[in-house]
């Protein structure tokens, strides 16, 4: 059996499960997520100078509800 510092796979299980369920519940497939990301990026790009290659979105749970989070790094304007 593996020594104790290698184990603790429960945490991994919980984190993976949480993410899987968020996507299942919203019926948000990775493909749909990618499409949404692209659309959002295009809209933002119209108004702001977004570092497109670093733009990321993700879904997470905030207490009782879901939240879509976006990380939108902007290009330095100076």
């Amino acid at each position, binding site marked *: *059996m593996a*020594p*104790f*510092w290698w*184990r*603790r*796979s*429960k*945490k991994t*299980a*919980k984190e*993976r*499960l*949480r993410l*899987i*369920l968020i996507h*299942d*519940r919203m019926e948000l497939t990775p493909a749909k997520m990618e499409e949404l990301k692209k659309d959002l990026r295009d809209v933002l790009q119209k108004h702001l100078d977004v570092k497109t290659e670093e733009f990321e979105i993700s879904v997470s749970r905030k207490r009782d509800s879901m939240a879509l989070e976006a990380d939108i790094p902007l290009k330095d304007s100076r």
Partner: protein
Amino acid sequence: MGKAIVITSGKGGVGKTTTTANIGMALAILGRSVVLVDADIGLRNLDVVMGLENRIVYDVVDVVEERCRIDQALIKDKRHRNLLLLPAAQTRDKSALKQEQVKDLIQELREEFDYILIDSPAGIEQGFKNAIVGAQEAVIVTTPEVSAVRDADRIIGMLEAGGLKDPRVIINRIRQDMVRRGDMMDIDDMIEILAIDLLGIVPDDEDIIVSTNKGEPIVLNSKSRTGEAFRNIARRIEGEDLPLMNTGREKFVQRIKRMIGIS
């Protein structure tokens, strides 16, 4: 009027049939009249777990297709006469039953029995829909694994869409040694993730295999802790408020071994 409860899970192999057999037997021991309905058409198994496979003459499809009366198809348990089984057909498939027919059948059984436990097939297709159509309550069986919990979550949504609000969950095959060393999700983790009421927890137990080998549900063994877990579940179904079972105290030597990382 009796209560029809569907036992379901989404994922196969988590212990639905064993759970159905044991809760049914436990309710019968408590003096209730119980009928177990095997809704897994084509993959009949509840009869084997109950040890009643040699007594089958007619099955549920014969009943809905009117080749026999209900009482001709019902098999009396050899240990408790107030426990009966309505077996699934083995040579037909899920399309042999229509939702309307099942609904009427369950309604008829509710007039005769205190409890109707419906053992659902795995999956989310027609067989599952047939199994839930006549039920007033639902019990979801799952195990502490990512795949089983994921499917349970999906089933909760489908039950609610089918009008079965507030299903309760049984967490089967908990291994306290693995929970303790952080290699298995514990009860709190799973309840939090699923956001659902807990009906009971059942420890993982080799004796379940022995009891299935013999065709004797483990609740019949008064010394078994797993049997006790099922007896407690039956009492909760009856409305008793029981604390959760301690699934095994850790021995001192075990604890030391765990602390130094050799167990």
